[in-house]
């Protein structure tokens, strides 16, 4: 780990630093989805996961972060835009489902959603 952190303040950062932030956000989102009992908490976990993926797309598309010519270029940013739009769509539908669930059960505890359990 020493070559990574030795010159962190005096040298430009690279793709791997961005990917570390993205990995932490992804893992936080996955754990959040798995542990929260509140529907809205699960939704926030999904947002975190998508955001962690977006960080990777932006990092691989950036001309300032890696030395070789194999950058994604503008494609990374375009895909990140699509991810943002799809996340907004997903949040709208999921909020509608959460509202319906609340109307049916008077609760937003997902552990109560067990009518389809076999």
């Amino acid at each position, binding site marked *: 780990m020493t070559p990574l952190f030795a010159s*962190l*303040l*005096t*040298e*430009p*950062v*690279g*793709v*791997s*630093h*961005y*990917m*570390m*932030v993205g*990995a*932490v*956000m*992804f*893992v*936080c989102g996955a*754990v959040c989805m*798995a*542990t*929260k*009992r*509140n529907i*809205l*908490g699960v939704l*926030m*976990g999904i947002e*975190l996961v998508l*955001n962690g993926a977006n*960080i990777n797309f*932006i990092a691989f*598309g*950036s001309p*300032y972060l*890696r*030395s070789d010519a*194999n950058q994604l270029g*503008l494609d990374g*940013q*375009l895909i990140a*835009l*699509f991810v*943002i*739009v*799809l*996340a*907004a*769509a997903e949040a*709208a*539908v999921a*909020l*509608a489902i*959460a*509202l319906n669930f*609340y109307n049916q059960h008077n609760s*937003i*505890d997902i552990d109560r959603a067990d009518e389809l359990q076999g």
Partner: protein
Amino acid sequence: MEQGIYWPSFFFLLFGAISCLFSVAVVLTSNIVRMAFYLVLALAATSGLFFLAGADFVGAMQLMIYVGGTLVLLIFGVMLTGKGPFVSLSTRGGEWILAALVGGSLLATLLPATQAVDQWQGISRDELPQTVSPTATRLGLGLLGARVDKLDQPNPALREGMSGYLLPFEIVSIHLLVVLIGAAYLARAKRRRATEIVE
């Protein structure tokens, strides 16, 4: 040779630390309103990371759509949980242990993978591109099917990837329209049923 602080790296550390810390805070707190507030902070710091990577348009979109959408989530959280027991639904102890185990092993897999390639370690100060060009025009033309950033692609095999994103743009537009209509249909008020329950 002693070099001064490279300020973009400093701001990367700042924004990266904020987004990581508040992501962890989202997981750890069980109060839904605090969770949403921490999420807003984490997403806003992420937009700072996007600006630092040269993606100005995507950073602005992140601030407007993502953070704005999460504010709506926050309002929903307040509205749905105003009265009593739903403000904090705590996770059980055994689930925490299992989640920490799974999350820790996932992180232990992902973090070494980020260090796997030497070219990902960043470039020295001298090799950095000296010009900064805004991306909004190129992104807009790319969405309309014209890749002005790839006009000089010398490899004819790669030139096929230049066709742009007109079709995905149309698909995602229709998708968004359908999804919004569907969400409005799903979330419509069912007055009759509510009165039945009350009676």
